[in-house]
C-alpha cells in the first residue's frame, strides 16, 4: 500500500535521525540536506539505501543529486511507489 506524504516524511525523519543524530522534528520539507541538516555525501547515500528498503522503492544514483531538500526526497519517493 502506498505511503502518504506525511508517512514518508515521518519515516524519512526516523532514518535521518538514526543515521546522523539530527532530531526528527528538524527534518522538515523545506530543509536542505546539505546546507540545513549538514548531511555529507556518504550519509546521504546511507539515507537513500535505507529509504529504498523502508518504502520499497528504487532511487537511482542519478536522481540522488536532484534531492536537495527533504521535500524533494518525499516527493520522489511518493511518485516512485506508484
Amino acid at each position: 500500500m502506498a505511503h502518504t506524504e506525511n508517512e514518508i516524511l515521518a519515516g524519512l525523519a526516523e532514518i535521518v535521525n538514526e543515521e546522523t543524530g539530527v532530531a526528527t522534528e528538524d527534518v522538515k520539507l523545506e530543509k536542505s540536506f546539505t546546507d540545513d541538516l549538514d548531511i555529507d555525501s556518504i550519509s546521504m547515500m546511507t539515507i537513500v539505501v535505507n529509504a529504498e528498503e523502508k518504502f520499497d522503492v528504487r532511487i537511482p544514483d542519478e536522481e540522488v543529486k536532484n534531492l536537495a531538500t527533504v521535500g524533494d526526497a518525499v516527493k520522489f519517493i511518493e511518485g516512485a511507489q506508484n
Partner: protein
Amino acid sequence: MPSPRTRVAVTGLGTVNPLGVDVASTWESALAGTSTARTFENDWKERYGLSVDFACQLTPGALDSLSRPEAKKLDPSGQYAMVAAREAWADAGAPEVDPTRLGVVVGSGIGGIWTTLDQWDVVRERGARRVNPFTVPMLMANSAAANISMELGARAGAHTPVSACASGSEAVALGMGMIRDGRADVVVVGGTEASIHPMTVAAFANIRALSTRVDDPEHASRPYDVDRDGFVLGEGAGILVLESEEHAAARGARVYAYAAGRGMASDAYHISAPNPEGQAAAVREAIEDAGLMAEDIKHVNAHGTSTPLGDIGELRAVSDALGGVTDQLVVTSTKSMTGHLLGGAGALETVFSVLAAHHRTVPPTINIENLDPETPMEIANGAPVTLADGDVAVLNNAFGFGGHDIAVVVTSS
C-alpha cells in the same frame, strides 16, 4: 627543532578492554587478579562447529558514551579506539596544542573485520545495493587513526602501523619518533582490535594458537604455567597521550611516566614462529635507546601469550638481551587477565607499564597453578608486587606474526 634526545612524557591514558570500561576500573580489576575469559553466550559453537567457544570480551557498558549515529559510522575496532582516545585526551587535560604539532598513531592488527564480513553477508543475502555506504571508511585499518585525528583536529600526521600483535606497541614507538624528530609536540598513540568473530576464532583455532580449555575458560590464559596450551582472544583498545617534556612542563601537565626507549627489529625468519634473536635485538635496542643498563630494568610486562613455546622463549630472549642480569626484576603477563588483544595488546600493556611505573606496583599474572620450572625469572605470581624505592624502568614487549619485534621502555622519572 628539538634534539633527538627530547624526552617523551606520558600525560594521558585511556582504555576499554575486558577488565574495565576505563583506566581506573581496569587497574582496580587487574590488581585484584580478575579473569575475564568466559564461554560465549551465543550459538556460535553449535552453529559453526567451533572447537573453541570462549574469549575475553569487552566489559559491558564500555561503549555507552558513543551516540548511536557515531557508533553506526565506526567498526567496533574504531569504536573502542574512539572511546579510549577521548578518555586519554580528557585525562591529559585536553592540552592546547597547535593542530600542526598534534599527531595520531593508532595501530590495528586486522582493522574492521566485523564490517568487512558483515557487509559481505549483506551482498550475498540482500544484494549489492544494500551494502552500507560507510563500509569502506569503517573497514579500513587506518579508520581509528583517521577518526581520532578528525576528532582532535590533529594535522601533524595520522599513521597506522599494521604489524599483527605488535601493532599497538609499534604505534607507541612511532609516536615517540614523531616527537623526537620534531614533527609533533603531542601525539595520541595506541592500538585497537575487535576480532572476536567466529571466522577469526576458527582461523586461530585451526593453527592451534588458541587454548582449548573449553571446560574451564576462566583459567585458560595461564602464562608460565606448565599446562598452558595457547592464548585466549581478547578485544579492546589502549591509548596514550605522548608529549614532549618541554610542552608538558610549559602547561604544568601531570606526567605519569616517560616513554624513554624503543627498539624495533624484524626476524626475517618465519611467518608465525618467533625468533628469540629478533626479540633480544629489540629489547637491547630499547634499553640502549633509553640510556639505561640491564640492572635498571625492574619490571617486564611480557608479551607472554600463554603458548607452550613463546612464553619461555621470550624470557630467555630478555635474559640474553640483559646479559643474564635479571635478579632485580619481576615479570608479569597481564594477558592472563585480559586475553590477547592482538593489535591492541601492546598499547594496553604499555598503559599497564606506565601505571606500574607510576604506582610502583606490578599487576599479577593469574592462573599459575604449577609454575613452569623452565621460567628463568621471578613472576608476579597470583598477587601484585610492590617495587622497591628508587627509579623504576619497565620493559614492555610485543611480537607479531611476520616477525615484528617491538620493545618499549617506560621510566618513572
